[in-house]
């Protein structure tokens, strides 16, 4: 499923990286420790996290995740948005928890 289709069906608020909405989502990774994300997230994963600072964009770009969802109503920082737009990494904000978000993704058929 493409990011563009997921975002409509999951009703997420996109804050950055629209040019990456053609990325294909394959599976989900949930994590806030960046070293673990670096070593465990797979290419194409949708990454759910509560980190919102600029460095999540570097991590996402280095491991080629398809998009980032920042959970729990945490607002993404302005610098993060600018960096994500530059590197074409879609970022979404959601009030839902990582658990609720993963249930939604499974309902959408992302596994």
């Amino acid at each position, binding site marked *: 499923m493409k990011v563009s289709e997921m975002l409509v069906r999951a009703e997420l608020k996109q804050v950055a990286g629209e040019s990456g909405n053609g990325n294909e989502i394959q599976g989900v990774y949930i994590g806030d420790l960046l070293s673990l994300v*670096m070593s465990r997230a797979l290419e194409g994963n949708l990454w759910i996290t509560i980190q919102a600072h600029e460095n999540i964009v570097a991590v996402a770009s*280095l491991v080629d995740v398809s998009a980032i969802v920042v959970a729990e109503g945490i607002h993404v920082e302005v610098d993060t948005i600018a960096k994500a737009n530059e590197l074409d990494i879609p970022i979404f904000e959601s009030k839902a928890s990582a658990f609720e978000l993963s249930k939604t993704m499974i309902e959408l058929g992302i596994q």
Partner: protein
Amino acid sequence: MTEEIVASFDYQIEKDDFKIAGSASSHIKKILKQLGLPNPLVRRASIIAYELEINLVIHTVGGAMHLEVHPNCVVISTEDMGPGIEDVDQAMTEGYSTANDTAREMGFGAGMGLPNIRRCSDEFSIRSTFGTGTWIRSEIHVG
């Protein structure tokens, strides 16, 4: 390792500069992709470069990262100006970290950096003198 160098780049990494942390690693990834190296190798090199870069930002007074691409291997190394690692064996243990609270709140300091680098390397070496600095060399074989 052959003497022929396909590409070589140097990066200066500043202490506590979280804003641009990851830029050098992103550049290294870009170069390796442009050279047509296989994706699994590029991924391993990206992880190594990022962990090395973050280590310089969090744990040192600043230092240099160096990329050298040879026909049969990729070498990423760092050299910093201190403060050095008191107990290298302990620093290589998964979960052990001396990162401060700010770094931990940002999701760094999981104690996974050096173990991740070693795991992704075909050859890995580290030398540190407490009070002086640390030198790390990671090599990935091509093919």
